């Protein structure tokens, strides 16, 4: 993906995101956040992020591989420990990538 369609994608992403950012600032005094929405929104980050992480670790070249041969899974578990202890993006990437490279070289 590149050129015009890509820029259109950026603009659509930005407009939708602005609508979310502006939503209740615009609605102030008119509508309150309904309880069911507030309840559901609490679980968005954990749910979506896990949905992005899990498949990337257990699939290897498009095939489900839950074994010690899957270096993404092994390096990912190492990265998960760092992520759990530090909650820091940079450290998680650093340790996870180094593990990935080392396992690849072995």
């Amino acid at each position, binding site marked *: *993906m*590149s050129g015009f369609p*890509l*820029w259109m*994608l*950026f603009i659509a*992403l*930005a407009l*939708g*995101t*602005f609508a*979310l*950012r*502006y*939503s209740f*600032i615009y*609605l*102030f*005094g008119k509508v309150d*956040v309904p309880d069911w*929405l507030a*309840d*559901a*929104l*609490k*679980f*968005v*980050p*954990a*749910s*979506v*992020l*896990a*949905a*992005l*992480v*899990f*498949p*990337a*670790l257990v*699939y290897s070249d498009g095939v*489900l591989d839950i074994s010690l041969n899957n270096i993404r899974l092994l390096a*990912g578990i190492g*990265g*998960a420990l*760092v992520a*759990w202890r*530090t*909650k*820091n*993006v*940079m*450290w*998680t*990437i650093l340790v*996870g*990538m180094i593990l*990935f*490279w080392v396992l*690849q070289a072995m």
Partner: protein
Amino acid sequence: MKSTHQDFLTGARDSLPILLGVVPFALICSVAAISVGLNPVEAVGMSLIVFAGASQLAVLQLIGEGAIWIVMLLTAWVINLRFIMYSATLSPYLQDEPLKRKIPFIYILSDQAFGVTMSKIASQPPANPAWYYYGVAGAIWLTWVFSAIFGAVLGNLIPASWGLEFAFPLSFMALMFAALRDRPTVIAALVGGITAVLTKGFPYNIGLIIAALFGIFAGVFAERRAKA
């Protein structure tokens, strides 16, 4: 100095410690963009226009996998749903502000700007909370833009053979652990993650959206049960 300007500067100053986290995240977004084939101008353009790192990384991963645009949009918007809560929380402080000031600064609302502003309001409320927020948000935005440009230069120097696409799940992992606060959020993550694994073969990466919804539903259900 006018008290509004004073609060603006205090906000900018208070954001300094947070900026240490903004720099690498913006770098990562640019480097990731280049790694899936965007050119440096597109990489910086994305960070400037979209200005929402986690959703940018998700879209970039989907670009790398060749997903269709509607799935990219839905995924990014779902990730950014959290801004609804920020919007609702900030709204009382911005209601008297003119649109010409409010709109640009709401465009650059970020997790970090929200966090710094709300913790200040909770501890020692500034005289002009809106201006304080503008200072925080502005400092973060400026740092983000310069770091994104630097990242685009850096990304161009990194060879594809490094397998940097593995940095995507790693970065999401760090963000995910930060979002795990209690049992229901852990259940939401487990259900979302496992559903995504099971629906991986679905066309157009639509499994990602299904998984996100299942995870959210499971979290709400777990919390209601815990309360009951």
